[in-house]
C-alpha cells in the first residue's frame, strides 16, 4: 500500500513540475515570437469581391511565408476587414482595424484608399495601397505607399505604343464612369496630345453596366483606328465583346485592371493589347492572380520594413519602407522613390492570343 502511495506521489510531483517546466518553456518561446498585427482592408462581399478575395489570398500566402522564417523575429497576424469597396464601409473597416492595434495597414482598391487617406494621415499608420492605380494616392498622405502599377506610366506607355508602334493618330476612349476612369482619361489624353495624337470621342459606362451597345455604336460611328478601354473586369469585357460583335476592326487596348475574368478573355479577348508587368498572371502555372501578387508583395514589403526598422514605432517603420531599394519579388527588384511611388523594373505591352496565352509586343 505504502509503495502505491509513494508511487502516486512521485507521479503527481513529476506531473506538477513537468507541467510547470513545459509552461515556462512555452511562455519564454511565446515572448520571442512577437506578434505584429497588420490590417488588411479588402472588398470581400462587394462588387469587386472576386479581386478582393484574390488579394486576401496573396496576403495570406505572404504571412505564411513570413511566419515560417525565424529571421524575421516576429510573426504576422492579419486583421482582415471587409470594406465592400464602399466609402462608408471603408470607414468602419478602418476603425475596426485600428481597434486591433495594427502596426501597418494594406488597403485594396482606389475608392477605399482615397476615402481613408486623411484618416491614415491622422492615425500615422504605415500603409500600402494595393490594387489602387489613382494618380493622387501617395500625395494624399505621408504614410501612404503605392503597392500597384499606377496610372501615369501605363497611360504614357499606351499613348506611345499607339502613336509610334501602331501608327494611329486618332483614338476613342471608352471608360468607366468614376474617378478611376477619369484619372486614366486625363493622363492618357495628356500623354497622347503631347505626341500630337487626337482623342476623337470619349464615351463612358457605369460600374453596373453590362449592355453598352449604344455607346459602342457611337464609337464605331466616329471610326477611330484604336479604342482604349479603361475600367474593371466585366465592364471592360462587355465593352470589348460589344466592340467586336458590332464589327469594330481597329486596335483595342486596356490595362491589367481589366484582365481578371480569364474565361472571357481566353475566348473573346484575342488581339487585345494591355499593359502588364513581367508577371504573366494569365499563365495557368502561376497560381497567383495579379491582385494576389500585389497584395503578397505589399505584405512582404511591410514585413521587411518592420524587420529593418530601428524600433517598433510608426516613424521607424515608415522610414524603413522609404529605404527599401531593390527588394526581390517575383516581378523583379522593386524600390520606393521619395514620393512613395513603387518603381518597377519594367512595364510591358502584351497582346492576348486566341489560345489564351499572351505575347509581348513592346518591352
Amino acid at each position: 500500500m505504502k509503495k502505491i502511495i509513494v508511487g502516486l506521489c512521485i507521479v503527481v510531483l513529476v506531473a506538477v513540475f513537468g507541467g510547470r517546466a513545459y509552461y515556462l518553456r512555452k511562455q519564454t518561446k511565446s515572448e520571442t515570437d512577437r506578434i505584429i498585427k497588420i490590417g488588411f482592408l479588402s472588398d470581400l462581399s462587394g462588387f469587386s469581391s472576386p479581386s478582393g478575395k484574390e488579394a486576401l489570398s496573396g496576403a495570406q500566402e505572404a504571412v505564411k511565408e513570413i511566419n515560417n522564417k525565424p529571421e524575421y523575429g516576429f510573426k504576422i497576424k492579419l486583421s482582415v476587414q471587409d470594406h465592400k469597396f464602399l466609402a462608408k464601409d471603408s470607414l468602419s473597416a478602418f476603425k475596426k482595424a485600428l481597434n486591433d492595434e495594427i502596426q501597418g495597414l494594406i488597403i485594396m482598391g482606389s475608392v477605399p484608399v482615397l476615402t481613408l487617406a486623411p484618416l491614415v494621415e491622422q492615425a500615422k499608420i504605415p500603409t500600402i495601397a494595393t490594387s489602387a492605380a489613382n494618380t493622387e494616392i501617395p500625395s494624399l498622405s505621408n504614410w501612404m505607399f503605392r503597392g500597384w502599377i499606377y496610372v501615369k506610366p501605363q497611360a504614357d506607355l499606351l499613348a506611345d505604343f499607339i502613336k509610334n508602334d501602331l501608327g494611329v493618330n486618332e483614338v476613342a476612349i471608352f471608360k468607366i464612369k468614376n474617378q478611376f476612369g477619369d484619372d486614366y482619361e486625363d493622363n492618357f489624353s495628356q500623354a497622347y496630345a503631347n505626341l500630337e495624337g487626337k482623342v476623337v470621342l470619349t464615351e463612358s459606362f457605369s460600374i453596373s453596366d453590362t449592355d453598352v451597345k449604344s455607346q459602342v455604336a457611337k464609337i464605331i460611328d466616329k471610326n477611330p483606328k484604336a479604342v482604349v478601354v479603361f475600367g474593371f473586369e466585366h465592364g471592360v469585357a462587355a465593352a470589348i465583346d460589344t466592340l467586336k460583335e458590332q464589327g469594330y476592326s481597329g486596335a483595342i487596348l486596356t490595362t491589367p485592371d481589366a484582365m481578371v475574368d480569364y474565361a472571357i478573355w481566353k475566348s473573346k479577348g484575342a488581339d487585345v493589347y494591355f499593359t502588364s508587368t513581367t508577371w504573366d498572371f494569365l499563365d495557368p502555372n502561376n497560381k497567383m492572380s495579379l491582385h494576389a501578387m500585389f497584395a503578397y508583395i505589399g505584405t512582404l514589403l511591410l514585413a521587411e520594413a518592420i524587420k529593418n526598422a530601428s524600433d517598433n514605432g510608426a516613424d521607424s517603420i515608415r522610414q524603413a519602407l522609404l529605404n527599401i531599394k531593390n527588394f526581390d519579388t517575383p516581378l523583379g527588384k522593386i524600390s520606393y522613390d521619395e514620393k512613395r511611388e513603387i518603381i518597377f523594373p519594367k512595364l510591358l505591352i502584351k497582346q492576348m492570343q486566341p489560345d489564351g496565352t499572351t505575347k509581348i509586343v513592346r518591352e
Partner: protein
Amino acid sequence: MILLLQLLINGLVQGALVACMAVAFGLVYRSLRIFHIALGGMFILVGYFFYTFVALLHLSTPIAAGLTLLATLIAGAILESCVYYPFAKKKSTSGVVMLASLGVMIIIENTIALLFGNNVKSISVDLEPTYIFYGLKVTRIQLYEFLICASAFVILGLLIRKNPYFKVAWAMGDQPRLVPVMGLPLQKIRQLIIAVSSLMIALPAALIAYDVGIEPHVGMSYLLTASVAVFFGGIDKYWGWGLGAFILALCQSIVSWKFSGEWVSMVTFIILIFVLLFKPSGLIGNSKRLEEK
C-alpha cells in the same frame, strides 16, 4: 444618320424586351392589385437558373431554356401559394403585400449573392455572330430577343382578347369582387396570372442573361423600367404597355445619341415623374369620370 438608325434599332430590340417585362408586371398589378416588386427577384432567378443549366450543368441551350421556363413557373407558383395568396385570404392591404413582395425580392437577391457571389456571371463565352443590313448591325441574340419577345407580347395580347380564361383574368382587374360571386375559380385564375407573369419575365430575363450576363443586383432596375412602361402606356391598356415600352426604349436611344449612354436611366425617372404628374392614366389610358374617382 446611320448612327441614329443603329440606335433606333437597338431601341426597338430593347423595347421588345421591356414590353414583355411590362406585361409581367402589369398583369399582376392590374388583376391582383399587387405592386409586384418580387418580379425583380424573379428576373434574377431566371438568369441564374439559365446560368446553372448552361454554364454549370453544361446542358444544351434549348434544353436549358426549357428547364429555365419550367423552374420559373415553379418559383412563381411557390410565390403565389406561400406569399401572395395567404395575404389575399387575410384581406391584407396592398401596402402590406407590397412590403412582403419587397421582402421576397431582397431574400432572392441576397441568397443568390451568397450562393454565386456578387460578380457578373457570363452564360455565353463566345462572340455573337453579327448580321449587317444596309450598314446596320444586329447580333444574332438581338434578333432572337426582338422576335421572341415581340411575338410573345402579340400572342398574349390576342389571347387576352379572344380566350375566355385570359378574358376573365383581364376582367378581374376591373371587378375583382365579381369573380367569386360569379362562381369562377378565383384561386386558379390567380395562379394563371402569376404563371403568365412568370413566363413573360422568363423570356426577356433569359435572353438578357445570355446576351450580357447576370449579377444579383440587376433586378430592381429592370423592375423599374417595366413599371414605368406600364404607367406610361396606361394601366388599363395592354397595347399601351407595349407602346410605353417602345417609346421608353427609343427615348433612351435618342438620349444616348444626343448626349451619352450614361444618362439613359435618368430618362426613365423623368418619364415616370412626368406621367404621374400630368397624365396619370397613361398615354392611351382613358381619363376616369368624376364619379368613378
